[in-house]
């Protein structure tokens, strides 16, 4: 009898137990977030993408074509044929869209820089406090979230309006009143106010984690406190700077409520443009096209943000 004998079955486990390729219950549980994303992000995204390829009609809903399921395959072919890039083409021709687009990026970028200048010292101060005080300050940063965002922005109207709290205070100390409401300044104030926690929290997280021994080592090697900050603290906090900046910049580009309530008629921002197209002009395809372009440009900072987050997680 030969030693090699009969050929070994290539996959002895085949047909035993759970068939391969079918996920276990744990593996299925891992799909839950993807299911969530599919239902609440991918499907709406596809709906908006489809809308942006449609045409405006005077009907309810105010766009065409609509997919007629009863028409079968020919109906589907007709549906796809009726889709076009007209809304995008119109966007390219109308300079207003480009202006709104650039203006949004400018608002978001400038506000991000101001947020960094305000948020960094705040986060730094918090991280330097005694742990008991730190908890209280952290609470104070998060506390505004307990009130409606809309109410907080309305409160700024009460502060900034011509006979508002700010001008009353200025009059008290004998200074001339300022007319800020419905200007870009008011939008910047609103943006910085509303997004400050999103800047402070990631900065605080990296600063608080920094080993105190590193600053002693820097001092020991000849650094003044100021030099220690620039040579050690600041470079080590850059992941937090990046995270905070992206976390604020991304949503600020599409911000609608703040420019709408605090900005003037001249304040151009994409969020407002989308709203106008949707509700005033009833041009859903145009609104959708603007939204899709906005999303496409934000993909780059979003990817950057994700990579930054992964890096921070790996450092832990």
């Amino acid at each position, binding site marked *: 009898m030969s030693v090699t004998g009969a050929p070994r079955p290539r996959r002895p486990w085949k047909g035993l137990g759970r068939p391969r390729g079918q996920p276990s219950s744990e593996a299925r549980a891992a799909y839950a977030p993807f299911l969530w994303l599919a239902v609440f992000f991918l499907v709406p995204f596809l709906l908006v993408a489809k809308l942006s390829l449609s045409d405006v009609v005077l009907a309810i809903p105010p766009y065409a074509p609509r997919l007629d399921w009863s028409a079968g395959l020919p109906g589907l072919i007709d549906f796809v044929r009726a889709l076009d890039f007209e809304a995008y083409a119109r966007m390219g021709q109308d300079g207003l869209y480009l202006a709104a687009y650039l203006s949004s990026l400018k608002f978001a970028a400038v506000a991000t820089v101001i947020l960094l200048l305000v948020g960094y010292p705040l986060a730094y101060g918090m991280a330097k406090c005694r742990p008991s005080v730190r908890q209280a300050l952290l609470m104070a940063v998060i506390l505004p979230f307990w009130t409606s965002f809309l109410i907080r922005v309305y409160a700024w109207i009460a502060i900034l309006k011509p006979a508002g709290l700010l001008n009353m205070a200025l009059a008290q100390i004998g200074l001339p009143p300022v007319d800020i409401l419905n200007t870009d300044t008011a939008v910047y104030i609103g943006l910085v106010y509303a997004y400050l926690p999103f800047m402070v929290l990631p900065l605080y997280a990296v600063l608080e984690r920094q*080993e105190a*021994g*590193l600053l*002693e*080592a*820097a*001092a*020991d*090697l*000849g*650094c*003044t406190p100021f*030099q220690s900050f620039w*040579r*050690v603290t600041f*470079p*080590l906090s850059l992941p937090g700077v990046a995270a905070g900046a992206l976390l604020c910049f991304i949503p600020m580009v599409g911000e609608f409520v703040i420019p709408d309530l605090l900005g003037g008629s001249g304040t151009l921002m994409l969020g407002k443009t989308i709203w106008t197209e949707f509700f005033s002009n009833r041009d859903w395809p145009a609104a959708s096209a603007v939204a899709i372009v906005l999303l496409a440009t934000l993909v780059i900072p979003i990817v950057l943000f994700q990579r930054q987050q992964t890096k921070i997680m790996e450092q832990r």
Partner: protein
Amino acid sequence: MNAKTRLNIGAVRSSFAPWADPSAKPLVRFDQVTKRFGGETAVDAVSLDIYEGEFFALLGPSGCGKSTLMRMLAGFETPDLGRITLAGEDLAGRPPHLRPVNMMFQSYALFPHLTVAQNIAFGLRQQKKPRDEVAARVDEMLALVRLGGLAHRKPDQLSGGQKQRVALARAIAPKPRMLLLDEPLGALDRKLREETQFELMALQQRLGMTFLIVTHDQEEAMITADRIAVMRAGQLAQIGRPAEVYEAPNSRYVADFIGDVNLFEARVTEDDGDIIRLMSPEAPDGLEAIEDDEVPAGSTAWLAVRPEKMRVHLDPPPPGPNRLEGVVADIGYLGDWTTYLVELPGGRTIRAARANASRVVDRPVDWDDRVWLTFAPDSALVLTR
């Protein structure tokens, strides 16, 4: 003789003793230095001189104030009372970055965003040295601690031993007047720690730099230091060469902290100037010790005997002083040494250690064997506190 020509590593540098020279000026002087944290006195009126070229160890259990003493010299803590001078200059009010001492931290505190070379260059760049001079010094330091190939690694890509050497190189690079080492080998495993102890000594010799080490590990202090200051609860218990604090401790605390010791509480019966005789219920035949210091008869004292100075007998030796009888309760075999725990009739356990000088023994001492312990009068020490 200066530090560079020192050859007998690990032994006492008998010719190097600036502290015995009344005309010698100390490099660092702690003068009645006191530091309190809240109600706790961490350092209590400590006076201490450290001389140029010395390898000095502050030794004590955790919380004895040794780290606080060092941190006051580095400038991270301010003394409440007293004065610290470096080369005759009062350091009061001088911030850490203006003090010509560098510290190697227990946690190493390497800058995680900088490479090994950048870490080492940190202090040099702060001194505003020209670029090529910095590069040359960094290369020199990398060679000194044998990290040549790792110049461009980040700290998180290094092993514990490598990090330790980067921390050392970074602290030495700016050529401080004095190097402070805070538990420098605490995070290393035993084998590496022993090697590094000898490396540190060799390095200190080569550089001729003054080293101050803080440690709770008596072996580390004994191996590396020229002098050891044993600390207890914020005060200095004893200062001396390693052999002095081991063979001539001035108190039960020092005797017990450095190495193992058997202590017998006894009544002094006679002091004839040379030999002191004592009585203890644990030693029916009496105790004898050779001691220069006078101890009044009738007072209570403690006779201290190190385990390795005890001889273990299986046959009863002739009766006489310094003879104890007991039963072997436990045997700790360490390879090079064997430690016997011998229970005396009173119930107390005495340690005796024997070097395993040969591989085979005629009559091994076994558990529950009746044994006799003896020691020479000049191996014992009389302590009065």
